[in-house]
């Protein structure tokens, strides 16, 4: 045996941070990199799921206090993650010191996870959310979970939440149906093509998607498998009719709740949901660079979004216990 060891076997970074050993060939055991935060939380990062199909999982854990419950965060996808990622990081860092364990993950075929985007289907994204939810519940030892989904992630969060009756759900600027999302995606592709001096019809893009397996939308693949498997999905159907607490956050510059969101909230109220809707006045460019860059950490709009969401979740997860 040589004296050489791999990083997998090494330990002991600085200031309370560690990398623990993990064997190369195994399934992804929960042997995370950890960071202790002075604010009262611990962060653990690992890959979960089977080897070759692992998912990047970033867990924010409360430290030295009871865990009120867990929150599974289902991110947007494609270019929509670009302007959004840090908000979810900050949410985890805001909630963990207040007693909520927050799990963020990258879908397979995206980010730091395994697999290719072309292979992603609606069901694989739903499975990813269910896997992550089960992992979180086991890790923190409670089935008191809430879900949060942004844009397309709202559909995924709803699909996963539907397996847990009564679980609270937060929806940030949710996509209400897959058809609308894809229409927007194809429109962005057309805008890019026009900018480059070419014009592509929707039919031609769909045909390319069918024959090539995917098309490019602003540097991200839109796969035929996902397109096909997502046909006809709506947020309302994905969540189901079992009443639960729901917070719908509209993020935009409009002065009123948009009609489609208002209708959805009304339908849920009729079905017995405890629904709140909130408007955050913010100009969010979901798929393109914004003109003026400001760090997410210092944007008042982001602060308001995080605080509103945190307060709502703490009320729901605390169940009458102190959430201070």
């Amino acid at each position, binding site marked *: 045996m040589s004296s050489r060891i791999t990083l*997998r076997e090494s330990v002991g970074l600085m200031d309370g941070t560690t*990398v623990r050993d993990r064997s190369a060939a*195994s399934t992804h055991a929960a042997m995370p990199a950890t960071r202790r935060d002075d604010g009262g939380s611990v962060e653990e990062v690992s*890959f979960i799921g089977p080897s070759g199909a692992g998912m*990047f999982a970033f867990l924010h854990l409360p430290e030295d206090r009871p865990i009120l419950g867990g929150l599974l965060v289902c991110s947007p996808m494609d270019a929509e993650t670009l302007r959004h990622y840090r908000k979810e990081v900050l949410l985890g860092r805001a909630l963990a010191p207040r007693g909520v364990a927050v799990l963020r993950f*990258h879908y397979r075929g995206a980010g730091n996870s395994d697999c290719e985007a072309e292979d992603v289907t609606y069901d694989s994204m739903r499975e990813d959310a269910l896997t992550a939810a089960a992992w979180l519940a086991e890790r923190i030892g409670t089935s008191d979970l809430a879900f949060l989904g942004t844009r397309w992630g709202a559909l995924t969060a709803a699909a996963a939440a539907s397996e847990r009756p009564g679980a609270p759900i937060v929806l940030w600027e949710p996509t209400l149906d897959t058809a609308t999302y894809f229409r927007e995606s194809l429109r962005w592709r057309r805008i890019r093509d026009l900018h480059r001096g070419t014009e592509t019809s929707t039919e031609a893009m769909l045909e390319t998607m069918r024959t090539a397996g995917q098309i490019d939308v602003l*540097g991200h693949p839109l796969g035929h498998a996902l397109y096909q498997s997502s046909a006809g999905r709506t947020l309302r159907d994905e969540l189901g009719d079992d009443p639960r607490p729901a917070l719908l956050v509209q993020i935009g510059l409009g002065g009123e709740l948009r009609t489609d969101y208002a209708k959805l909230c009304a339908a849920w109220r009729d079905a017995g949901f405890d629904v709140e809707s909130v408007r955050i006045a913010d100009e969010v460019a979901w798929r393109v660079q914004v003109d*003026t860059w400001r*760090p997410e950490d*210092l944007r008042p709009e982001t602060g308001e979004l995080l605080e509103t969401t945190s307060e709502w979740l703490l009320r729901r997860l605390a169940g009458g216990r102190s959430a201070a």
Partner: protein
Amino acid sequence: MSVEEVVTTGREVPVFLQAGDETIFGVLTEPAGSPRGTAVIVVPATAPSSAGFGRENVYLCRRLARHGYHTFRFDYHGGGDSTGVVERMSLGDLFKGDVDAVVGWFGERGIDDVVLVGSCFGSRTALGYATESPRVRMLALVAPPVRDFAMGQRTETGKAIRIGTREALRKVMRPAFFRNLLDARKRRRYAVMARARLRWVIGQARSGSATGGDHWVSPRFLESVRGVVQRRIPVLFLYGEEDEFWGDFERARAGRLENLLVAGGTRVEVRALPGTIHDYRDQTTQRAVQDLIAAWILRNDASRAPQRGIAG
């Protein structure tokens, strides 16, 4: 182990490491082949996470790991999964401390031989760092800006130096200009342009013809290029033919930059791919950039046999 092995998260280790007062997050990919004893560190642009804009960092790291490299992708302090707050990002204030933390982390584990791959802000950071560290052996720079500006001011500052004085005057005489002054956002943009134009005019007056008209090129950039050339570090400058920064780079070659590139000889390679590569706005381009970088690193390393693994 065959070099054809598909590298997955099974060979990856999430890592927190300290950089000054902040903790930066990254992902180590361990080599699938015989370890070369070289770390390839991806110095990021301003992507939201260590994965990159369209996973380009993931693909590059896993691909090079197949060839025996330890690879590492990370988030700057204040970004992605790292801690801290960055109030302003500017090419005048590069995040060399973060790169130094990663290089030091590898050094503590017995790997002192480093290749830096940077994109945009990351390419300038990598270039600036390379002049200060004896551990950097190669540099691949994707779309490095040759002038300095703060994040969010690229377009305005670029326009300000390219526009002719006559055209500028004509624009500010239009009614639309005065209407736009009522809009706070447009007013801010005009202010950025005006300041950039003023700096350009002052620079031109001060430099005369001594700099070949390249007074607008970042002195820090030129100094760094001079530094890596003097240290005989192989450098790849990679642009898209339609990148704004490629136009700037070509214009800068009318001045002092050209002499530096010539002095670098065959160690300096300048390539421009069709289309745009800045911001990685399509997958075809992303893959082409990765192909070229991987091939360039392997070609430069061809004479170096696989050496050793990581020390305990």
